[in-house]
């Protein structure tokens, strides 16, 4: 059984005939140049954007799952969160529990994991872009949803928080969840189990990163030449 299956999904002018499947417990990345349809595909996969074709979670058609139950089965993190009102960081994270009886189970733990404990009572509309993104990831974590769909979670983060988020994603997949997120850092993509490459709204390739991210594909899709070199390697102390 697959955790996520997208079959021939199309959204006019954005993605065309995309099909992909992810096994449970997979840490997968979605890569592609700007405007290749990554955000659209994530929203389609999350059941938030109507598309032709089909989406199923653990073998169940998303269209047949009632919206409150969807909130327990999949979590989505937007690329950029806009906050008009000054909700506290803690209350925004706690919203992740809405579909599970609105208790506060796991909220403090998620705040700690995303290094937000000190900011818990700060209004979200006064946070930096990276801090906001951590709030949204913490909110996704407390949903305990087995399918996590994150739109560029690493882009606004500093190196330490980026590595921490990747570590949390890995921990989730070890516990049986499936994580699919879009990213631009191709070096980070090499640490994942599976990579999906989108180009001009179409699926270009999918599979383990070392098989998919070949120099030829990188040249064709991104217009960059891949070069092996001994660069800087960062890890948590």
């Amino acid at each position, binding site marked *: 059984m697959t955790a996520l299956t997208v079959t021939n999904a199309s959204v006019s002018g954005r993605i065309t005939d995309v099909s992909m499947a992810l096994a449970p417990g997979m840490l997968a990345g979605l890569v592609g140049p700007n405007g290749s349809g990554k955000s659209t595909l994530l929203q389609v996969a999350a059941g*938030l954007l109507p598309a032709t074709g089909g989406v199923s979670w653990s073998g169940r058609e998303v269209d047949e799952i009632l919206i409150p139950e969807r909130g327990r089965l999949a979590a989505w993190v937007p690329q950029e969160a806009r906050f008009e009102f000054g*909700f506290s960081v803690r209350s925004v994270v706690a919203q992740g529990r809405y579909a599970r009886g609105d208790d506060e189970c796991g909220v403090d733990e998620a705040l700690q994991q995303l290094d937000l404990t000190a900011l818990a009572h700060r209004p979200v509309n006064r946070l930096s872009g990276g801090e906001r993104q951590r709030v949204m990831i913490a909110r996704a974590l407390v949903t305990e949803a087995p399918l996590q769909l994150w739109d560029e979670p690493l882009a606004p983060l500093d190196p330490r928080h980026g590595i921490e988020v990747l570590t949390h994603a890995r921990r989730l997949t070890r516990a049986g969840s499936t994580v699919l997120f879009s990213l631009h850092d191709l070096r980070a993509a090499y640490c994942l189990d599976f990579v999906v490459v989108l180009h001009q709204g179409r699926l270009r390739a999918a599979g383990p990163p070392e098989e998919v991210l070949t120099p030829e594909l990188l040249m064709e899709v991104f217009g960059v030449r891949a070069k092996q070199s001994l660069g800087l390697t960062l890890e948590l102390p």
Partner: protein
Amino acid sequence: MTPPWVHRVAFPVALLLLGLLALTSLAVGDMRLSPARIVSGLLHRDELAATILWNIRLPRMLVSVMVGAALASSGLVMQAYFRNSLASPGLLGVTSGGAAGAVVIIGLGWASASIFVLPVAAVVGAMFSTSVVIMLARRGASTERLLLAGVALNALLGAVTSYVLANFTLSYERNARILFWLLGGLEDRTWEHVFMASPILVAGALLWPLGRPMDLLSLGSREAQSLGVDTKRLRRSMLALSTVLTALATAVAGTVGFVGLIVPHLLRLLVGPEHRRLVPLTLIGGAAFVLACDLISRSAGGLRVGIVTSLIGGPFFLWLLRRQA
């Protein structure tokens, strides 16, 4: 952040304030009534007090309470809907829509046919404004876009009202009634108006359980749906309730501006942005605010309540704009 004790005392304090203002509203006027006389009057033990209270002051007080609760909560709902703290029924033209609907009906002389004609016309007018604003906001509800839509709608509906005034052969009485709508007032309210406004209580009660999902919606529609909120249904309910609330308030009191902007804003500053607290507090706070403005208008002799709310609301709005910039 709001200290927890503020959350604990906010609701009882608001209720106490509303009670005191309601009592004052019954007590003051050409003939002052002591609390003891108010009780005797309400129980028909003092016939003079009973006549004043049951025929004049009680209906006026009840209409004020309902109008205030309706306008303030309608503003709160629109702010959550558009994710914009400057959205309010007055600025978006919903109030003008309700008033234009009512004015056309008065102009045509149909208002006296049934007591339901006026509220229905106000709802239709308000719905027109709401649908125009929704159409414009579909491509992004930025402050500028919403306010400009409001400016255009207010101008257009103002033109409709002026047309009715200038081109219908109107009696003095009809003209006076139309002016009443334009100025917004609570004078001479009767039990018929109380009855006309009473669906506000139902709409207000229906808002209560929407508080929590409104919190999620105010951070984004897709975000809310991903967390398990049926946003389509929620947004439909919010729009219907806020439009009906504004329209009913306008049907009984004319255009009373800025209540939907001032009250939710002040309360948000006081108790934070969570709608579970804001919905009940805005209903009470709005009622208290309009009662207070009505008391000011009565003590200032001839100053209509709509003028008082605008005198407070105009500078408040400018302050808000400056604060946002």
